[in-house]
């Protein structure tokens, strides 16, 4: 079922792409346009709407609260400084644009940072990240899950790791992910497919 629908979704025409762009524009146009004209309050509204996903993405890749916070700050600072150049593109979203920046900021961080990509510091208290709405039992379970799953994501090859994080933490479409990482959509999906399959196998064997 999901397959059927998904395929249908992917088989969109250029026309529909255009419409997607319009809808996206509807969603954030006021703020994105205002922000691009220098309206910091509009930008802050955008920031509020996207902070959670940016942070999820970075935390999942870094597994380290202070670093995730640092890079999150960099992302939004960079975004503010370049939002003047933001233009809605067909099939693209503001979030996609933002994550292009996040993707680069992360790459820069890995490049210049003392810590390599290989060190996923999952020793932080994942409990602190949980929705405070949850009770202690839920929190403990989820924190456990976060540690285990992020470890599994981290153990993936780099392409799969990035695609999976963009897909499930940033909640981007594959088309957007392809744009962000500069690969073909099919390649991105292939990486996602392999990564998902790896996680599935780990899950089967009880590792996740």
């Amino acid at each position, binding site marked *: 079922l999901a397959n059927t629908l998904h395929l249908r979704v992917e088989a969109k025409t250029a026309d529909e792409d255009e419409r997607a762009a319009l809808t996206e524009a509807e969603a954030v146009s006021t703020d994105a346009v205002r922000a691009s004209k220098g309206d910091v*309050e509009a930008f802050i509204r955008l920031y509020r709407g996207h902070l959670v996903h940016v942070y999820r993405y970075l935390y999942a890749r870094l597994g380290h609260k202070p670093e995730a916070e640092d890079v999150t700050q960099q992302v939004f600072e960079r975004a503010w400084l370049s939002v003047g150049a933001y233009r809605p593109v067909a099939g693209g979203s503001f979030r996609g644009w933002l994550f292009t920046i996040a993707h680069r900021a992360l790459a820069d961080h890995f490049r210049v940072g003392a810590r390599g990509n290989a060190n996923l510091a999952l020793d932080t208290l994942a409990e602190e990240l949980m929705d405070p709405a949850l009770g202690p039992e839920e929190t403990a379970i989820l924190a456990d899950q976060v540690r285990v799953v992020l470890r599994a994501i981290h153990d993936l090859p780099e392409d799969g790791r990035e695609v999976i994080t963009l897909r499930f933490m940033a909640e981007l479409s594959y088309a957007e992910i392809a744009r962000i990482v500069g690969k073909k959509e099919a390649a991105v999906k292939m990486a996602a497919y392999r990564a998902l399959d790896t996680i599935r196998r780990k899950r089967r064997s009880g590792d996740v």
Partner: protein
Amino acid sequence: MSEMSFDAKSEREMAALEAGPVGDLLRSTGGAIYPPAELAARLEGRLRAMGAEGAAPVTGAGKAGARTGDGRSRLYTGNAQPDSSRLGLRVPRLAWVGLGLAAMVVLAFGLAGLFGAKVGERAAGTASDFVPQGKVRHIVFEDRYAQSTITNTQFTDSYSSTQGVWLANGAEHLIMFALGPSPGCCERHWRLVDDDAVWFYVRPRSTLTTTNPTNRSFMSNVLKTAYDPRHFDGIVPDKALLDNFLKMPGYSLAGAERIDGRDTIVVQSAGLARSIEMRAVNGVRGIAVVGFELWPELGAIFTSMSGLATNDQAFDSLTGHPLSTPTAASGPGPGVPSLEITPPRRSDTYRNEVDYRIWFDKETYRVLQVQVTTTSYGGLSDGMVTRNMRSIMLDELLDASAVPADMFKPDVQEGEEVQEAYSALVRQAMPYADATPVTPVIVELAVPGSVAAGEPKVGDLAPDFEVADVMTGKPVRLSSLRGKLVVLNFWGMGCTPCTSSMPIMQEVHDTLKDKVAFVSITSGPRYDAAKVKQFVTGNGYTWTFLDEGGEQVVFNAYRAGSIPTFCFIDATGVIKAIHRGAMVAGAIPGENTLKYYLNQVDPNITLMNPLGVPAPNNPGWYVFTSPSGSYSVLMPQELVEPSGRDGWDFYGVREGEALTYISGFKEYGQILASGDANDHLEMILPEVETFMNGTARPNPAKIALGAHPGFELMLDRADGRFMRARVYSIGSRAYIVYAIAQEEQALFTAEMDSYLDSLTLLR
């Protein structure tokens, strides 16, 4: 990246992985991570400082600005704009449909053949199998209960999801108009139903879910936020649209006020703007989900104001106020007045609603002020929704590229039957549904329906299994318990309705352990045997507890798609009854539902008194009180049967060959039982009484907060065939259903009246 081709097969497999447990795991992991609040605040200060420093970005007035230069044009996409001249005001219901279409989210797909349960391939049903065996013609289903049964300490599981399951069973098409955001119930539902269920959670742009950050544990609050017009500067609705708007059910003129020296028209919503939640299960072939964000303009207002605030934290930061502790420190912006926030009122802790009040300039129709009133439960955050959602590419579904704006453009002419509008919806959904052609209309419910392939039914031999006892570690084989009545209970530790059923089970177990074997079974990776053991020991339960681990073999074999599920198996191993939902004590004073079941399934067990009490002045008649106590009915004893459905009134009323279940007013009973929201109860009950007496329609304004739908279902006693479903509402929300199908309303009213006439109401 690989150069290998990514073919359709890989694509399908990937989509299956995404939609399956692996995707769930990843999604729920993402949904569990939140940025620290101090980061959000610090960063915001930093950005604001950067803005103030003049580190403004390069101005980009070009393309984007030009494209959205026309304030109105950006609010509409093509034909989404309602055409009042065509729809006409003489038939507001059609205008309403048209307007509804303007903003609706329509999802359609087909499931036929995927579960091996083709429509038309029918299994025999029995009257005691409470799964409706019919091809459902169409169901207008307002999904509110899961939400409203949430109390401040617990939520009663998925009243509506459970109903959703079986309402959908074998349905050709399911058209659901669902307005209640009830994310709290979804998790266990889809997770357990697994491959046979699809869960949609669609959040329209205007829904703001708020929670109280200082006490999120199901503490709710009421937030009243008055937005400054500067938040939606430039949005000027069309006058004709406003005229239409005012004629739409659910919105009303709330008077005229002066704002900033301007005369205004005040429009008040009746609680219509809500999330849409959809699910389809077990072989539903086409689904049209119609959302009621009635007015695209309004959606745009909120979108532009909120930047799509999609969870409580975003909303918190959006308003700049922790919801429970208003501060002026971080208002919406320089020079913009702070938001007005009223403190939480406990008595309003009833459901999650978003209501609007809009002030239009009388002359220009500019929006001068919008007030959003959100009544919500804590804990139902978007994060939770994300975690819980088994999304089939939700982003794409919400994206216009997946659901083109003109996907549903029913060419409904004035005066046409409303059903035609339905048909048009479904017809247009078809290309997006299964490629298999299906009758694109709402079909009469007639043919006995199918249950999911392999699902054990009443009368079947209970699937045997052997699972280790969590207390002793020794394997227990179900068939070894033959000779006793077995109550097989599927449950989970995080499931309050499950655990709340257990004291009742213990009570019955204490008196009946020689005759009845209770077996509770858990599954899934979250609860290992050790935790269950701890739980059982801690609570002093003395019957048998099993844990089958993560594979869910037994759960799947019994299709324990929702928990708790109780399966009553007789001494010969035959399933006598299946109950999905909690066992409830005190529905009738001193009794509980488990006893009813045992009485029903085993003639040798007599645990309780007759269902009713003898009527003092009518020999041979009995008084039956509804579970909530909100009304009583005088009937001959033999006309009454326990319904066996959690969430439905306890009595099935026999009418000739039919057995009718009334959803009734159980939620109030539960709220009363939990000691919560008594204020509401006091407010609502007189209205309920009025309704039940049939003397007058309730006053919508009076019970706006308490408005809720009811369902009435009629099954054929002989074969369990699903004969008829009715939806009725009390209060303003009734208009929703009625406006869509006034014929239905008339039918309902007549039927309901005649039904009520057939009963003697005591209160």
